């Protein structure tokens, strides 16, 4: 699913965010990416979302060579990726249902199908009864579950999560990780960046540790 070979991302004045990273993630695998702040976790996720481009090496995801994708191909590629952020990034002026339906809407899915799929994912995260609520009326855990539902609504082949439990207490964090485990059990590849070692231990999946832009451990 993800094939990174000698991948580097350098900024000006020779500062490397990632250096010579080689990593392979199989289809249907669940992988943690961990390391201290500044290790390069978020940079790697940004490269996977094509928010930035690598300066050296190659990065192929689900058959797409991300180092050479055109703008139009980036759009197409992103339609197969789900993403979850630490700060949820829900739209405050839209209801829970609208926050989810707008994702298939803007990629051209017919309205009836948008509603049906949104209800399915809301039910899956256990928040179908809150579909008319606004994000400000939800707890942090509920907002993150909505964020996960939004990530899944287009049936992605890969889900990327950047510190998805960073704003949540330990119990809620485990609950969110269990959701990711269920997503993964359905065959979706999941890559979670977190610095929460205890959570990684509890979930118990392959863990890639980065430090100063390099892989220092794979366990």
């Amino acid at each position, binding site marked *: 699913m993800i094939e990174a070979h000698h991948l580097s991302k350098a900024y000006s004045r020779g500062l490397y*965010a990632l250096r010579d990273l080689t990593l392979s993630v199989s289809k249907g695998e669940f992988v943690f990416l961990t*390391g*201290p*702040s*500044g*290790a*390069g*976790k*978020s*940079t790697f*996720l*940004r490269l996977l*979302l094509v*928010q*930035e481009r690598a300066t050296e090496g190659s990065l192929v995801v689900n058959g797409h060579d991300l180092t050479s994708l055109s703008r139009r191909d*980036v*759009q*197409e*590629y*992103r*339609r197969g*990726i789900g*993403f979850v*952020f*630490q*700060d949820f*990034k829900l*739209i405050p*002026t839209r209801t829970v249902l609208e926050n989810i339906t*707008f*994702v298939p*809407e*803007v*990629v*051209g899915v017919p309205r009836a199908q948008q509603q049906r799929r949104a209800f399915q994912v809301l039910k899956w995260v256990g928040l179908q009864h809150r579909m008319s609520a606004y994000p400000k009326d939800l707890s942090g855990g509920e907002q993150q579950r909505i964020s996960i539902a*939004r990530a899944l609504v*287009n049936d992605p082949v890969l889900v990327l999560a*950047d*510190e998805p439990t*960073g704003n949540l207490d330990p119990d809620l964090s485990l609950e969110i990780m269990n959701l990711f485990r269920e997503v993964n059990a359905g065959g979706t590849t999941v890559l979670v*960046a977190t*610095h929460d070692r205890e959570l990684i231990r509890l979930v118990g999946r392959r863990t890639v540790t980065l430090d100063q832009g390099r892989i220092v451990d794979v366990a």
Partner: protein
Amino acid sequence: MRAVDYALRQAWASLKRSAGASALSVVAIALAVIVLGVLLLLTWNAQQVMAQWASAAEFSVFLRDDASSEQRGAIETALDQSGIVAGREYVSKSQALARFRREFAELASLTSGFADNPFPASVEVRLRPEAEGDGRADALVRRVAALPGVGDVRYDSEWLSTFGAGLRTVRGAGLMLAAVMALAAAVTVAAVVRIGLYARRDEIEIMELVGAPLAFIRGPFVAEGLLQGGGGAVLALILLWTGFALARGWWGSELGAMLNGLSVAFLPFRLCAVLVGGGMAVGAAGGLAAARHAGRGALTEPSGGR
């Protein structure tokens, strides 16, 4: 079609959310359209009046007192064969005197002391309207003036040309002013749309990340400008029409007398549609200018580490 539907729905929602700022854009566009509308109203009516005057344009061929009937016949033949004369009328010396006494009654007593009738006989010629513009009228006047028996030819085309040139100058200056105001209105729309763009940066980022086409990302902002522009133009037309109706109510009779019974009219539907279309285009341009970078990359840093 889905992108258009989505853009219009989002634009309408955004206008409702930021009603105050949107009103500012609408007023800016309305002001620009009012300036252009007043200019069009004045020049369009002036053109209509000028066209009627031009269609009624005529020249007078004054005959010498000693002109023979053969010479008068030759003059009338030259006029008839020119192909640009719509009609002609011979006015004898006695008819000219009677006309003077009728039209200038307060001066009529002056003519009673004349031993001889001082008014010359004339042929009054009405021209076809198209002869004014292509120079054939001028050529005919020169030819007739050279014929034997002709004392003088009076042709009032010069003031029409001067009036037309003045009208063009006023229109040019007005168009420049309207263009500057339209630019200012577009900048205002762009500033207002940019505020909305900033407020919706998370939404735009999510749209980018799910692979939404640019039409979905930028469309709502262009549609917002379009609606503001259309609203401003319609508001301007309502205000213009109200002002026009009031002015006609107050000064209609004086104006009618001044224009020899010709009436002024509001802008035709075609020009109103052009003004609304122009307002929408200015608004859409402002929206597009504000949103031109949206969808060209991530707008915020992801949380967490580097």
